[in-house]
């Protein structure tokens, strides 16, 4: 007899007696996650030593601080990642370059120009470079997620990847002496990563700095988020960057996220504040910014 429990993160039904954590995403099975009064839910932390499976491969998450994902790659399975995620590999694992398009736009956007791709059989260990949590995104065929730059730890080679222009940019006019200049702010960089599963399921592993939180927005529901707190969101969520005036020389640029869909944030945000003269703030408030157009 099995004790089948649906995973509260990815929905996959798993036998809690066979594995205390979901084999598709690593979330603990049977743990009730509750939204706080504001509607945010702390992401269920992947327990130390939890296993995940994809294809004929088996991954294990170990370490609670800067977790390492150790993957025993089955023959025919592969992972891609940026080279600075690699901790170690067995001699039998082949690491080469992952084919990438759009070199010029990646260079201009400060994205890594090349990624690595590892193929089994053999084991490989990956980790990010900051304390935080692993966020697993199992994608069914047809599903996708938008991910802020530099959060990717690894993705299975069944996940299609593209870098698209970030919707979180804001152009405004400011004075430079007697001249006026156009300035553009891009708190998440020029591009965001878009991962999707086409004909096969895929797994995308992200690293959130600090703790990770999720919120499911209903259609038309809006939440304003510090843009650097964003980790990922559903393609159905509309993201826009708007100024928030504080009554001083500070202007906060906030990401307004409008549902329907999922938003994932992390607590390791660093903020994005503009310091402007009162004349520039008046100009912005009077329509000198692109949000009015």
């Amino acid at each position, binding site marked *: 007899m099995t004790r089948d429990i649906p995973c509260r993160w990815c929905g996959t039904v798993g036998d809690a007696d066979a594995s205390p954590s979901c084999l598709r995403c690593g979330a603990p099975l049977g743990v009730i996650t509750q939204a706080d009064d504001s509607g945010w839910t702390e992401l269920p932390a992947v327990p130390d030593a939890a296993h995940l499976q994809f294809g004929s491969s088996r991954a294990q998450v170990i370490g609670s601080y*800067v977790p390492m994902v150790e993957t025993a790659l089955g023959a025919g399975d592969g992972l891609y990642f940026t080279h600075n995620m690699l901790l*170690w590999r067995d001699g039998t694992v082949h690491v080469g370059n992952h084919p990438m398009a759009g070199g010029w736009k990646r260079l201009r956007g400060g994205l890594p120009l090349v990624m690595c791709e590892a193929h089994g059989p053999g084991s490989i260990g990956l980790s990010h470079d900051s304390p935080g949590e692993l966020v697993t995104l199992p994608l069914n065929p047809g599903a996708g997620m938008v991910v802020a730059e530099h959060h990717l730890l690894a993705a299975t080679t069944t996940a299609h990847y593209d870098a698209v222009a970030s919707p979180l940019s804001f152009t405004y006019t400011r004075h430079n002496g007697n001249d006026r200049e156009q300035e553009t702010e891009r708190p998440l960089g020029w591009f965001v990563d878009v991962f999707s599963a086409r004909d096969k399921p895929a797994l995308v592993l992200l690293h959130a700095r600090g703790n990770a939180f999720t919120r499911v927005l209903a259609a038309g529901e809006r939440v304003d988020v510090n843009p650097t707190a964003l980790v990922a969101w559903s393609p159905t969520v509309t993201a826009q960057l708007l100024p928030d005036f504080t009554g001083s020389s500070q202007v906060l640029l906030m990401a307004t996220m409008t549902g329907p869909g999922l938003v994932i944030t992390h607590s390791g945000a660093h903020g994005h504040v503009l310091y402007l003269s009162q004349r520039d703030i008046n100009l912005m408030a009077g329509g000198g910014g692109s949000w009015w157009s």
Partner: protein
Amino acid sequence: MTASDYEHLQCSWCRSTNPLGSTSCATCGAPLAQAALVSDAGWRAAPRIRDTTRFGFSNSTVEVEGEIVPVAEVDLAAGDGVFFEAHTLLWKTESMALGSMNLGGGLGRLFGGMPMVITTVAGPGKIAFARDSAGELVVLPLHPEMEIDVREHAFLVGTHTVSYDFVKIDGLKNMLHGGSGMYMDRFRTHGQQGLVMLHGSGNVFEKQLAPGESIHVEPGAFLYKDASVTMQVEKQDVKTSALGKGLYLVKMTGPGRLGIQSMYHPHLGSSE
């Protein structure tokens, strides 16, 4: 004598024996109730030492405080001493006089980016140390006649029964792309037991390599190894930038222990 006089708890990290009822190892501070966490590939997680855990060496006591950037607070008994890099010192009691270790190769250390002076202090008194990144305190009790190599800027404190040296990394390729700089710290015990404490960034994992067994490790992740483990930098068949800059990994070959840290900053050899 009763049967329980012969029973003891063995620490899964340092293998020292402890009296029944102990909650943490008296030699290294590891929690005794928890089994060692070992990954499928054989990496053993270094024990996360609980806040305010105490353990000892000679007649002195170490108390670990904090779990994010842990502090090692040493209550040094008369006759005991420790050595350290000056910038890891947090505070000390007024009565303690600092000294310095007589090191050779000052110019080499200067060029190698290592501190020119290793600072010493003798008991009695209290002194505390910490490194400057979030991570784990790794306690390595050394039996007599042991020798370990540690990447530069990772050692926190060594006890007076441990001799300190630094070894030049062999080979220009190893030096340029090995991620450990020009030198490694070498700690050696002779007739007596000693203790070395390191700071690993993020989580720390250890693997026991069998004779001839090899594993490829990101140079920035290397933390420590037994002196018997050899290291050889190998260029991988991977480009890391438009200019084709290569990715270098270190091939570590046993026998011996190898320790890695999960948080590192990519070194020059593989950065873009």
